[in-house]
């Protein structure tokens, strides 16, 4: 608790961090509010709520997927909070003042955990609210089914943030760390492309997808599948053109475990970096 308090004290008084954190939560709310608006613009009548996106239990899937896209906000904060510790040389000062390297890392991980929990709770609350207002089904058994999407959401965020933590500790400069994150995404894409092209020639038993699912960012993406094609409206169209959608939309627990393993690895590697480096 002391470590979390130290970290939050650092974050809370940093203006840009504060704006980003507030911005993140306000954005979640405003998206929720916006999506309930009825758009009537000339002949176009559009009401998101009528599309069935707020139906239980589908809403758990839809909201966790959409709101997870905002995670980049907090990623910036994490990268900046580590980058600052290096550029202000306050990491050195913290250690001299009697914080151990393990405590320093733990204070950062606790801050991430606190944020993930808060964010997950918000998603839960907003989904419950919107669903309660607009869902066609309000039986308790349906409302509280598919809650594993919330767990998936939390793990997805935690995995992503620990990746950011590791990158920023590795690179020390916040801008470069964010750049590297983008670069890594591209790198995963390229490697996937190469594997799809050549891998089956070399090792026939292995498909590119089988290997690719172990890549950190891809595994995070795999936990919650895109929800759009699951929407009944789109599904109907697909049915009409005779293309039955039988994709599995449930939470991929295998990906979940892969991401958790990555998180542990990232935290362990971060500790190793801290331990070995001279300041």
């Amino acid at each position, binding site marked *: 608790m002391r470590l979390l308090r130290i970290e939050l004290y650092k974050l809370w008084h940093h203006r840009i961090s504060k704006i980003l954190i507030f911005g993140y939560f306000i954005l979640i709310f405003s998206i929720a509010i916006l999506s309930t608006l009825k758009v009537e613009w000339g002949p176009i009548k559009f009401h998101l709520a009528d599309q069935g996106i707020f139906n239980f239990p589908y809403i758990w899937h839809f909201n966790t997927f959409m709101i997870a896209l905002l995670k980049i906000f907090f990623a910036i904060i994490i990268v900046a909070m580590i980058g600052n510790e290096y550029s*202000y040389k306050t990491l050195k000062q913290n250690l001299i*003042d*009697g914080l151990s390297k393990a405590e320093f890392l733990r204070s950062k991980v606790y801050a991430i955990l606190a944020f993930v929990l808060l964010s997950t709770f918000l998603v839960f609350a907003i989904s419950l609210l919107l669903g309660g207002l607009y869902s066609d089904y309000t039986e308790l058994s349906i409302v509280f089914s598919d809650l594993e999407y919330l767990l998936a959401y939390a793990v997805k965020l935690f995995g992503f943030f620990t990746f950011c933590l590791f990158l920023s500790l590795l690179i020390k400069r916040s801008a470069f760390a964010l750049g590297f994150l983008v670069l890594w995404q591209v790198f995963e894409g390229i490697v996937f492309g190469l594997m799809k092209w050549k891998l089956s020639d070399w090792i026939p038993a292995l498909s590119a997808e089988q290997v690719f699912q172990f890549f950190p960012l891809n595994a995070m993406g795999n936990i919650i599948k895109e929800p759009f094609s699951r929407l009944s409206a789109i599904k109907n169209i697909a049915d009409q053109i005779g293309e039955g959608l039988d994709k599995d939309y449930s939470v991929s627990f295998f990906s979940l475990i892969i991401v958790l393993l990555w998180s542990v690895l990232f935290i362990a590697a971060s500790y190793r970096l801290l331990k070995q480096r001279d300041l």
Partner: protein
Amino acid sequence: MPETLLQLHALTKKYGSLTAVNELSLRLEKGKVYGLLGPNGSGKSTTLGMVLNVVNPSSGSFEWYGGTKTTHQALKHIGAIIERPNFYPYLTAFQNLKLICQIKQCSAAHIQEQLELVGLWARKDSKFSTYSLGMKQRLAIAAALVNQPELLILDEHTNGLDPEGIHQIRALITSIAARGTSILLASHLLDEVEKVCTDVIVLKNGNKYYEGSVDGLNPSFGYFEIAAQSESSLVTFLEQHTSIGEISKKKECFHVLLTEELSAEQFSQQLQEAGLLLTHFVKKQPSLEDQFLLLTQSEKHATTAH
């Protein structure tokens, strides 16, 4: 025996092929004021970095409080100022000190007292980024004292300060030492160390040249500055004298280094008996600076003087 604060056992730091600190062994006792003396790049900061948990030793070890506390626990009872002050620029002085109290797990009750001591209480709510260098240095001192430390470590703390600031901080250190706080002061400024320290450790190229009291730095019998009307007969007399070692001419007078105890009365009488008419005659003790140069210039070094 006084309580041991810090003990180093053959502590070594290598950066590639460069040995920054070479098998350094030391013992710091409670209640003393130590000077860690050495030219730039002699390994002072690296040594401090190792005991302060920010530099990993290549070999050797150190222990705080005789090994009864882990390094980071021990550091909570220490105050340290390394090179230049590092604070969160977006926090005010007061907030920065409060954060340090949380890290050190000490009471925030002394913040006001320390800020008043360094004359920053009026500016406590200004952001650190708005401070001048002198103010930043003074805040660093307040931060180092906020936990009522048992040992205060200062590394080149007067770098970049104006003479007034240096004077203020020196007075502050003297008053802190008077309260019984142990101090370890790393500096390449000899008069700094001479003025406040009781014990001195001399480092050069990572090796320890001397460890002991300031007075015992070099067992020296002092030297005479002499000038006479007849230079040649003075030189002849000096060269024959048994208590005299090196003779060198500086400006108008001779610097005569003694190899054994010789009082000014005795020597002037001997000179008079030899019929020499003196125009200049002074006995001097070598400054710490002279001794320091003598010590670090000599090729062979004694690991310990006592």
